[in-house]
C-alpha cells in the first residue's frame, strides 16, 4: 500500500489491496452512526482477515469504541453492513455476535468484586467451557494468560491489572474467531504486556483474527499486521504496518479540523505564580511543573495515564506527597481541599447536585460570602450568582430550574461559575469541554483564559491534544503516571503532544497496577472470607453455653434446647429469606408482617374441625399470598423504581392492615395435630430445626456452586457488570423477593405451631429480628456478600442469647442491651474488617 491510497477522504475498499476477499473474517462496510444528530461514525469500513492482528488507531473521540460496539452488536449502525465470515449479519445483537465467535475485552473489566475468580469465570462463560472439571478448566484459563491468583480469591482483592487479565482470560476461554482488545495494555506492566502479546500471537497462529485498539505506536509496530486509522469518526486510511513509517501514521492521527476558536495566549512573561515539585500520589509519581502569571497549564496524555489523578491530588482529594506553592504561598493538603477549585471530568457523579437548582449549585462554594448576621442573604446570593452566570452566558429557564434540565455546556458553566464565585487560589479543570457543544466550548475557553489573566493559576487536563494546543501556554505530557515531556510556548502543538504520548515507553508506576507480593494464604483467606463470621458466632455460642451451664442444670435439658431451637427455626426461615433480599443489595421489610398475616389466614382454615381439603386450601392460599407479595415487592423495586425500603415498607404497612381486616382480635385456634407436627422433636432436636439446617445448607451450596447463586450475588455485587456478562437482573431480583416471601411462609408455619392462634398484632417485630440475625451472620447490607450458614448461626445465637437472660436472671432490660450491642459490635467489626481489606476508609 502506498501513501496515495491513504489520503484524507479516500474511501476505496481497502480490502482489495490487503488480501483475498475469501478469507475476510469480519467486514464492516460503510458504517455510519449518529448520536443526537451528531455523527460519531461516518461511512467507515473495516476489513479483518483471518489470522491477522489489525490495529485500530485514533485519538480519543475518533470513533474507535463506536465502531467496536457496532462490531459486537452493542450498537446498531444507522447505515452500513456487517459481514462475519463472509455472511451478512442483518441485525447483530451481543448474543448473536458471541454465537458467531466475536469476543471483546472491554477497557473496564466486567467482573463482580464480591465473587471469586472461579465464580466470575463460571457465571460469565457457558457451562460447556468447563466440561471435565470446572476447577481444572478455570486453572487452564488463568494459566493461559499468566494470571497468578488463587481461584478462591475474591476479585475485589485483585489489582486492576489482575482484573484485566481475568477479563482477557474470559475472552480467550471461548476460543473466539474474532477477538477485539480495547487498549488492553493500559493497566498492565511490561511482563504482563509481553505475555499478552505472546498470547495474541499464538491465537493468531491458530487462525483467530484480532482487532487491537491502541494509542501506542510501539505496540502497533510490535504486534499488528495491518492498521486502520480513524479521525473524527471518519476513516483516515489503512496500511500494512511494515509499509508505513511512524511519521506517516502520526500524520494520519493528528490534524483534526479546528472546530472552535481560542482566545489569544498570554506570552507568558509574568512572574512565576505556581510551582509543583516532586508531587506524588495514587496513580502518578514525581510530577514537577511551574507556571507564570497568565499561563494556562495543560496536562496531556492518553486517557488513564494519571492526568485525572494528578488533578485530584492537586485538589486535595487524594493523599499526596511533595509541595504545591501558589504565588509563593505553600498550600498543604487541607488548604488545597478547602480552597482549590476543582472541576471534575464526570460532571454527573462528581460535579453537580442534579436534584438541586442552578442557583444552589452555583452558590455552593461561596456560601460564606453571602452571609449577613448569621443567615444567608437571599438578595445578595441571587445577585452574585446571577451576575456570575450572566457573565458566563449560561442559558437556563431560571435560577431556580433544576440543574439537570440544562444542556451539557450550560451545566459545565454552572460548575465553572461555582469555582469562580469562590475566588479560588488555584483552578483545576478535568476535561472541561467534554460533552459540551462547539459554541459553548469557545466561551469556556474565554472564561478560563480570563481567570488566568487575573492571576489565578489554571491547570487543565484534556485528552484532546488539539484543544490543549489552542488553549495552553505550557503542556506536560503524562504517560503511565509520569511526566514524559514538558512543552512550552511554540512547542505546544498537537503533533508534539500526541507524539510524546504515543511514543512513550514508560512503565506503569500506578500503585493500583502493582502486582501483589504474595498469593494469599489459606488462613488469611478464611479470616477474610465469608465464613469467619459464622465461626465467630459458633465460638460465642459455645462460650455462652460454657458460662451458663455450671449451676444451671436445666440449661442443657432437652426441653430448653429444643425450645431455643424451635424459636430459632421460626425466625431462621424468615432470616433466610431476608438474606436473599440483602444479597441482591435490597432489603425486605415486609417479611415479618407477611408471616403474621399468613398465620391469621391459616387460623381460618387449619383448624381441628376442618377437613383435609379445607386445610389444603388454606396452605395453597398461604403460598399464593406469599408469592404475590414477593412479586409485588420485586416489581415495585425493578419496574416502578421504588427503593427496596419504600417498596417493602408499603407492603409492611398494608399486610399489617390486612391482618386486622381479617381478625380484629385474637381468634381461630390452629389445629392441635398440626401444632404437634410442627413441634415434633426427638430428644432435644426438633424435626423442624433439622429441616431448617438442611434447607440452609442446600441454599448455601446453591449459592456457591450453582449459576442461581452466582447470579444472585453478582447482581448485588455490581449490577452493571452483571448485566454485561448477560445476567437477567430483573428476573434475578424479583425471583429473590418471591423466594424471600416463600421462606416467610415457612416461618409462618412455625409460628402457627408456637402461637396456636390467629393474632393480627403478631409479626411486625420479626422483620427487625430477621435483619439482626442476617447481619450477625456476616451478610453485607451493600449486597453481593453473605452466607446462609451465617444466617443459621445468627438466628440460633440470637435465640440462645434471649434464653440466656432468663437463666442469668437478668430480666428484659439486658435483652435489649445484648441485642443492641451485639448487632452494633458485629457491624463495627465486619465493617472495619471489610474496609481494611478493600484498602480504603469506610466512609467516602
Amino acid at each position, binding site marked *: 500500500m502506498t501513501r496515495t491510497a491513504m489520503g484524507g477522504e479516500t474511501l476505496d475498499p481497502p480490502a482489495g489491496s490487503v488480501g483475498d476477499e475469501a478469507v475476510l473474517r469480519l467486514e464492516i462496510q460503510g458504517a455510519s452512526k449518529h448520536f443526537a444528530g451528531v455523527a460519531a461514525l461516518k461511512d467507515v469500513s473495516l476489513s479483518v482477515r483471518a489470522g491477522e492482528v489489525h490495529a485500530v488507531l485514533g485519538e480519543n473521540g475518533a470513533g474507535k469504541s463506536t465502531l467496536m460496539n457496532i462490531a459486537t452488536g452493542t450498537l446498531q449502525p444507522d447505515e452500513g453492513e456487517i459481514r462475519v465470515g463472509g455472511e451478512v449479519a442483518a441485525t447483530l445483537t451481543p448474543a448473536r455476535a458471541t454465537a458467531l465467535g466475536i469476543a471483546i475485552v472491554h477497557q473496564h473489566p466486567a467482573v463482580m468484586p464480591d465473587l471469586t475468580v472461579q465464580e466470575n469465570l463460571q457465571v460469565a462463560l457457558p457451562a460447556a467451557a468447563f466440561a471435565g472439571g470446572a476447577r481444572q478448566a478455570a486453572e487452564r484459563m488463568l494459566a493461559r494468560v499468566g494470571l497468578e491468583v488463587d481461584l478462591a480469591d475474591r476479585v475485589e482483592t485483585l489489582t486492576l491489572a489482575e482484573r484485566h487479565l481475568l477479563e482477557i482470560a474470559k475472552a480467550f476461554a471461548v476460543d473466539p474467531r474474532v477477538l477485539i482488545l480495547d487498549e488492553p495494555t493500559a493497566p498492565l506492566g511490561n511482563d504482563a504486556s509481553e505475555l499478552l502479546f505472546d498470547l495474541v500471537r499464538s491465537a493468531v497462529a491458530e487462525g483467530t483474527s484480532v482487532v487491537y485498539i491502541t494509542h501506542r505506536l510501539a505496540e502497533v509496530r510490535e504486534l499488528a499486521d495491518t492498521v486502520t486509522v480513524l479521525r473524527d469518526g471518519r476513516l483516515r486510511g489503512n496500511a500494512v504496518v511494515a509499509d508505513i513509517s511512524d511519521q506517516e501514521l502520526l500524520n494520519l492521527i493528528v490534524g483534526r479540523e479546528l472546530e472552535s476558536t481560542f482566545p489569544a495566549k498570554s506570552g507568558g512573561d509574568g512572574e512565576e505564580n505556581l510551582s509543583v515539585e516532586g508531587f506524588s500520589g495514587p496513580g502518578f509519581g514525581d510530577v514537577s511543573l511551574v507556571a507564570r502569571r497568565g499561563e494556562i497549564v495543560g496536562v496531556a496524555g492518553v486517557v488513564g495515564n494519571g492526568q485525572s489523578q494528578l488533578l485530584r491530588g492537586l485538589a486535595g482529594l487524594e493523599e499526596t506527597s511533595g509541595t504545591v506553592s501558589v504565588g509563593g504561598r505553600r498550600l498543604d493538603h487541607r488548604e488545597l481541599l478547602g480552597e482549590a477549585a476543582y472541576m471534575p471530568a464526570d460532571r454527573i457523579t462528581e460535579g453537580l447536585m442534579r436534584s438541586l437548582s442552578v442557583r444552589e449549585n452555583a452558590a455552593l462554594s461561596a456560601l460564606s460570602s453571602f*452571609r449577613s448576621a448569621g443567615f444567608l442573604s437571599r438578595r445578595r446570593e441571587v445577585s452574585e450568582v446571577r451576575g456570575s452566570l*450572566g457573565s458566563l*452566558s449560561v442559558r437556563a429557564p431560571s435560577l*431556580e430550574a433544576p440543574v439537570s434540565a440544562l444542556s451539557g455546556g450550560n451545566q459545565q458553566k454552572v460548575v465553572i461559575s461555582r469555582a469562580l464565585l469562590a475566588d479560588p487560589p488555584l483552578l483545576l479543570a478535568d476535561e472541561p469541554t467534554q460533552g459540551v457543544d462547539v459554541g459553548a466550548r469557545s466561551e469556556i475557553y474565554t472564561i478560563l483564559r480570563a481567570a488566568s489573566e487575573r492571576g489565578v493559576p489554571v491547570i487543565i487536563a484534556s485528552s484532546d491534544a488539539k484543544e490543549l494546543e489552542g488553549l495552553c501556554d505550557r503542556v506536560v505530557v503524562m504517560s503511565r503516571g509520569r511526566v514524559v515531556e514538558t512543552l512550552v510556548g511554540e512547542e505546544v502543538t498537537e503533533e508534539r503532544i500526541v507524539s510524546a504520548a504515543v511514543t512513550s515507553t514508560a512503565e506503569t508506576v500506578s500503585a493500583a497496577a502493582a502486582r501483589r507480593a504474595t498469593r494469599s494464604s489459606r488462613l488469611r483467606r478464611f479470616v477474610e472470607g465469608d465464613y469467619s463470621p459464622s465461626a465467630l458466632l459458633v465460638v460465642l455460642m459455645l462460650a455462652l453455653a460454657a458460662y451458663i451451664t455450671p449451676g444451671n442444670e436445666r440449661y442443657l435439658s432437652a426441653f430448653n434446647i429444643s425450645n431455643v431451637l424451635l424459636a430459632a427455626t421460626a425466625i431462621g426461615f424468615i432470616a433466610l429469606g431476608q438474606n436473599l433480599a440483602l444479597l441482591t443489595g435490597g432489603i425486605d421489610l415486609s417479611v415479618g408482617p407477611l408471616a403474621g398475616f399468613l398465620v391469621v389466614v391459616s387460623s381460618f382454615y387449619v383448624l381441628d374441625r376442618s377437613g383435609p381439603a379445607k386445610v389444603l386450601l388454606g396452605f395453597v392460599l398461604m403460598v399464593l399470598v406469599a408469592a404475590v407479595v414477593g412479586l409485588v415487592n420485586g416489581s415495585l423495586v425493578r419496574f416502578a423504581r*421504588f427503593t427496596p*425500603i419504600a417498596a417493602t415498607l408499603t*407492603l409492611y404497612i398494608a399486610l399489617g392492615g390486612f391482618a386486622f381486616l381479617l381478625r380484629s382480635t385474637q381468634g381461630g385456634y390452629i389445629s392441635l395435630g398440626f401444632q404437634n407436627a410442627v413441634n415434633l422433636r426427638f430428644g432435644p432436636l426438633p424435626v423442624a430445626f433439622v429441616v431448617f439446617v438442611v434447607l440452609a445448607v442446600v441454599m448455601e451450596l446453591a449459592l456457591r456452586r450453582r449459576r442461581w447463586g452466582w447470579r444472585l450475588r453478582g447482581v448485588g455485587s455490581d449490577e452493571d457488570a452483571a448485566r454485561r456478562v448477560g445476567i437477567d437482573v430483573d428476573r434475578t431480583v424479583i425471583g429473590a423477593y418471591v423466594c424471600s416471601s416463600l421462606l416467610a411462609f415457612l416461618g409462618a408455619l412455625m409460628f402457627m405451631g408456637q402461637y396456636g392462634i390467629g393474632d393480627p398484632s403478631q409479626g411486625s417485630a420479626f422483620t427487625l429480628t430477621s435483619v439482626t440475625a442476617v447481619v450477625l451472620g456476616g451478610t453485607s447490607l451493600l449486597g453481593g456478600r453473605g452466607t446462609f450458614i451465617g444466617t443459621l448461626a445468627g438466628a440460633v445465637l440470637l435465640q440462645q442469647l434471649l434464653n440466656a437472660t432468663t437463666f442469668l436472671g437478668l430480666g428484659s432490660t439486658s435483652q435489649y*442491651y445484648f441485642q443492641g450491642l451485639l448487632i452494633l459490635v458485629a457491624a463495627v467489626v465486619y465493617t472495619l474488617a471489610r474496609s481494611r481489606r478493600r484498602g480504603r476508609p469506610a*466512609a467516602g
Partner: protein
Amino acid sequence: MATTLEQDRPQLAAGRTWASKGLVTIGTATVILFVLSALLDRASVSGTSLSGMLPIAAVLAIAGLGQMLVVQQGGIDLSVPGAISLALVVITHVPDGDSSKLGVAVLIALVLAVAAGALNGLLIGTMGLNPIIATLGANAVLYGVNLQISGGRPRITTRLMGDIGGGSTLGVPNSVFFAIATLGLVTLVVKRTVAGRRFEAIGANQRAARAAGLRVRTHRTATYVWAQLLYCLAGILVAGITSQPTAFAGDTFLLPSIAVVVLGGTSLLGGRGFPLPTVIAAVFLQQLVQLVTVLGFSAAISPLVQAAALAVGVSLYTIDWRSILARRPRPPAAAGAPAAGTG
C-alpha cells in the same frame, strides 16, 4: 467577578421558588381529605376531634422532621421509637410527679439524646456503618436504658408537663405551637444558613460535595444528633399529652415518621428536604386515622389507606406517568440510563 462581563448579556430570571411537587401534592390531598371528612361526617372535623388529632399530628410532625434530616443524607433512622420512648420515660420517671424537677428531667433527656445521636453519628457518618444496622442496634440500646430507668412501668406525668404539653392556648393545643416552632427552626437552619445549605448539597451528592471540598463526615455525623434532639422533643411532648404514657409509646411513630417524609417529597436517596410538606403530611396521616375511626370502620382500614398513600406518593416521584399516559415509549438512550428513581 469576571472581567469579561458584557453589559448586553441577558440576565437570568431570578425565578420564583416554585411550590415543590411535594407541597402541591400533599397540600391538595390534605385539603381534599378535610373536605371529604366534613362531607362524610361532621364529627371528624369537630373541635373535639381536631383537638384529639392535632397533638399527635404535632408529635409525628416533629419526629418526621428529624427523620427527614436523616433521610436527606440518604440514611434511615430506625431508632425513632427508642428515642421517643426514652425521652418520655425520663420526663415521667425522673420528676415522679414533682413539677419542680421537670427542668432537670428535660436536661437529662437532652443529654441522653445528644449521646444517642453521637453514637449513631459516629457509627454511620464517621465509621461508615449502614444506617439500618446502626440505628437498629441503637434503638435496642435506647430501650435498654429506658427499661433500666422505668422497669417497663408507666408513671403518671407531672402536672406542669401536662399543662405545657397537653394544654391549650387560645384554643389551640400547645403541641401545635411546638411543631410550628420546630418547623420554623428546621426550615431556617436548613434553607437559610451556610451549614444548612452545605448539608443539603452533601445529601444530594456526597461525591460532588467532597470534590467541592465540603466536610462530608462532620455533617453526616451531626445529622444524627440533630435528629435525636427532635425525637427527644417529640418524646417530651408525648409525656405531656398522655397522662400515663407507656415505656413503649414511641413504637407507633417509626413507620409514620418515614411515611410522612416520603409523602412530603423528600427522596429516600437523599438530597433536598421538604420541611413544610412533611409537617402537612403528618396532619394528613393523622386526620386519615381520625376519619376512619369516626366513621366506625375497622382499625385495619387506616394502615391500608396509609400504605396506598405511600405507594401513590412514591410512584408520583419515581414513575414517569406523563410518558406512560401519553403511551410513548421511552427513548432508547434513556432506557439504559441508571435509575434516577426517587422513592
